[in-house]
């Protein structure tokens, strides 16, 4: 009886090993799931959250932000700094500085939701790289946008 168990153990063990080998062989001949970045890129999910970015007004091209500061107030990590100024000919303030400390940001999205002007959105920028941390400690979100203040 013991001998039978011994032999049966060997046989069932071998069979289970063969099953495992079949699985890995099937894996090997099937298509790899990897995407060869940067030559290929995987499609980003529709609601991907990169760092926040400033939206521009369609008409003027100026930033939509009027520096109310609600984003800076609601931010749990206190990583947003906003300064605004009133241009002479308009009633609303316009942001002149909008700095994001991305080293602290946890991408919670409260700023995006709280913005009354709907000026903030998530970017789709995922391949961030830099040489030093200061590049991400003070990210200037107004960069590249037109400004009403010409210096």
């Amino acid at each position, binding site marked *: 009886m013991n001998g039978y168990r011994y032999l049966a153990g060997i046989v069932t063990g071998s069979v289970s090993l063969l099953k495992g080998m079949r699985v890995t062989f099937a894996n090997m001949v099937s298509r790899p*799931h990897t995407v060869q970045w940067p030559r290929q890129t995987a499609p980003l999910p529709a609601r991907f959250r990169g760092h926040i970015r400033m939206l521009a007004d369609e008409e003027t091209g100026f930033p939509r932000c009027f520096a109310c500061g609600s984003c800076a107030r609601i931010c749990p990590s206190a990583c947003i700094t906003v300064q605004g100024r009133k241009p002479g000919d308009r009633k609303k303030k316009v942001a002149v500085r909008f700095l994001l400390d991305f080293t602290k940001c946890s991408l919670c999205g409260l700023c995006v939701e709280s913005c009354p002007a709907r000026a903030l959105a998530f970017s789709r920028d995922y391949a961030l790289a830099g040489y030093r941390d200061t590049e991400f400690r003070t990210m200037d979100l107004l960069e590249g946008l037109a400004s009403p203040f010409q210096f």
Partner: protein
Amino acid sequence: MSISPVTIVCYLLGISAVVGLNAVILVWLERKVAGHMHFRYGPMEVGPHGLLQTLADGIKLLGKQFLVPDAADRPLFLLAPVVSLVPIFVAMVPLPLGETLQAWELNIGLLLVVALGLLNTLGILLAGWGSNNKYALLGGSRAVAQILAYKIPLLLCILTIIMMAGSYSLRQIALAQKDGWYILYQPLLFIIYIVTITLETNRSPFDFSEAESELVAGFHIEYSAMGFSLFFLAEYSYMFIAAALASILFLGGWQGPFLPGPVWSLLKLYGIIFLLMWFRWTFPRLRIDQMLHLGWKILLPLALVNFLVTAGVLAL
């Protein structure tokens, strides 16, 4: 002393080329097989499909610094990679890879290869003790416990084949399989042999002396740069020798239809190496007591029974 100097130099160069090229190809193949079994590609960047990746890595390793730990036993530490590499060059000598492709036809070639295969453990032991590191020492001790468990079944396998072929010469053994490969007569023995060479070459699921997840890197934990690459070279060369032996003992060596001999040799050999890689990326590592159980209580009785039955059949 009648061998001409040109022949000696040619064979030395040839064996060195086989050792080096084989390691380059096997490292690449291993990474490719591993990758594809994980739904990955493996190396793709250097050369077509990453073929030159190993060369790039080798050059990188050459440029690195070879560190000897302060507490290490310096002579043993330095000797270990050499001890594990040198026997390979001797063990390659009697291996026939083709009808005429053989450095030296030796009538005890099989014994020589098996005896030198044992020196591998000695290199591991030296490295383990020389490093003065507890993980390395554990790796070395495990290698010793391991060799005791697998050597007897391995020798029994070889003995059975010797009995069937009636010769210790690798060439004669291959030639004896002209009409039928021994794997057809001895399928069980082939399985036992494959398991024991997996044990002998220290490969997963039996890589106890290396065991990344338990011993970090086991016996070669303290080795950097060239020392590390020599161990790598030795490991893959031992795989080559073990697989070559398997192809000669069970698959008729270089014999096969249509293709020339060396091609058949390499096909069979790399087929067996692929099998070993397949094992490595499929099976989890055993516990050491499970390995001892496998060696002493399963492989040994099976090999013994097989040996006795074969002897009985041959005597009839």
